[in-house]
């Protein structure tokens, strides 16, 4: 008995060690598998505040680049508007007379501007922290778009901050298509290079070539149809030889992200109802 007590006294740190390790792994597994609070992430109040303070300082160093980026984006939009106006004139419709049916698809889409306060690019699971949260109307599952194109999907939200699964995360899956042909697949990322991602599941009879634009498909209603993702960089055969794997050069520069927009799409009531019924029937079985 005495020996046993002695043993326990000498080696009691092993119990503490096991306890702490079990706690750590529970946290790790929970974070990877379940939706939960933001307490253990950089979207909690203390970490968020510190990152926000840092972003306030470092944002100045990137002002020039951000300006250039916005200018380019603006110019592109202006060119697009000019082209569209020309097309409308050819159709003999005056610009002033655009009726509400033309804008209808955009009703219910709202953009919430937000600032990136923390951004990881070279981990295996990269996350982005934004300085807006549920108070500004950001919800889990919303899409995030930057000046270059798609950035990621909101994962967790707290009142003032939100945590976004970056496109550069091996858990990220985004449904997208080749812009001119319409063949669709799932965009994934493999750790290593922050400039490229992979589009899987493009059928072998699809013709795609280097330089084709890749855009969101809009099937999931997270992103609007046609939001830019990147351009085809290389086409290779997939391992099973049944489809192509397309290497996509991303159009967003993830190393230099400051201002982004969160896409708040209101689900059409009919679709929502349909999907809820589906979930219900799955639960019943």
């Amino acid at each position, binding site marked *: 008995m005495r020996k046993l007590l002695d043993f326990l006294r000498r080696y*009691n*740190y092993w119990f*503490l*060690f096991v306890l*702490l*390790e079990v*706690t*750590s*792994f*529970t*946290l*790790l*597994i*929970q*974070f*990877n598998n379940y939706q939960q609070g933001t307490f*253990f*992430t*950089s979207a*909690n109040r*203390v*970490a968020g505040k*510190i*990152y926000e303070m*840092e972003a306030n300082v470092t944002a100045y160093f990137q002002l020039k680049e951000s300006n250039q980026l916005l200018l380019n984006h603006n110019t592109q939009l202006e060119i697009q508007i000019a082209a569209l106006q020309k097309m409308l004139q050819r159709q003999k419709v005056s610009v002033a007379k655009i009726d509400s049916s033309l804008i209808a698809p955009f009703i219910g889409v709202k953009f919430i501007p937000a600032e990136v306060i*923390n951004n*990881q*690019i*070279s*981990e*295996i*699971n990269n*996350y982005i*922290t934004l300085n807006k949260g549920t108070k500004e109307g950001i919800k889990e599952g919303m899409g995030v778009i930057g000046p270059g194109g798609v950035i990621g999907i909101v994962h967790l939200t707290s009142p003032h901050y939100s*945590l976004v699964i970056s496109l550069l995360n*091996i858990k990220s899956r985004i449904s997208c298509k080749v812009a001119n042909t319409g063949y669709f697949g799932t965009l994934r990322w493999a*750790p*290593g*290079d922050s400039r490229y991602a992979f589009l899987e599941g493009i059928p072998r009879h699809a013709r795609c070539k280097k330089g084709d634009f890749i855009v969101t498909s809009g099937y999931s209603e997270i992103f609007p149809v046609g939001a830019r993702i990147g351009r085809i960089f290389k086409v290779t055969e997939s391992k099973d030889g049944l489809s192509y794997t397309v290497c996509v050069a991303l159009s967003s520069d993830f190393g230099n992200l400051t201002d982004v927009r969160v896409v708040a799409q209101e689900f059409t009531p009919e679709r929502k109802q349909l999907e809820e019924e589906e979930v219900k029937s799955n639960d019943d079985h």
Partner: protein
Amino acid sequence: MIIEYLKKIGLLIILVLIQVLVLNQIHIFGYATPILYIYVLLKLPADISRNGLLLWGFTTGLIIDFFSNTPGMHAAACTALTLLLPQIRSLYAPKGDVELVQVGIHSMGVSFFTKYLLTAILVHHSILLLIEAFSFFDITLLILRVSSSTLLTFVLIMAIDTLNKPKKLV
């Protein structure tokens, strides 16, 4: 005693801030990230209780986890490191030496401290990056990341500890 601990907590806060605001943004060749914050664990006095050592490790790791969105990962690696620290020290301790209290290059000597430091960093980085590899396994990437980060952390801590001379007792 309490002042000593307050100093350690101050060092911890400074190192955490340096780690998350500066060093986490560094990725030399895309692989090597210096992990400086373990310096505070390596410098804990040798006469601290085993339980206290473990708690220091767990807490430090958890704070880093807050910032880097990896709940539990750094905590697990640091707890394992603090379990092994006394063993690593006794492994390399010169025979017949007096009991060591202060940990550092000036009190331990270059050879002893180098071996201790290199082993400790290697243990921590291996465990950390192995846990990370649960979600994505690529052996070349793993070895590259462990070796390059170990080297970088080692150089950084050696430099800091050499500069950090303890005040001479008069």
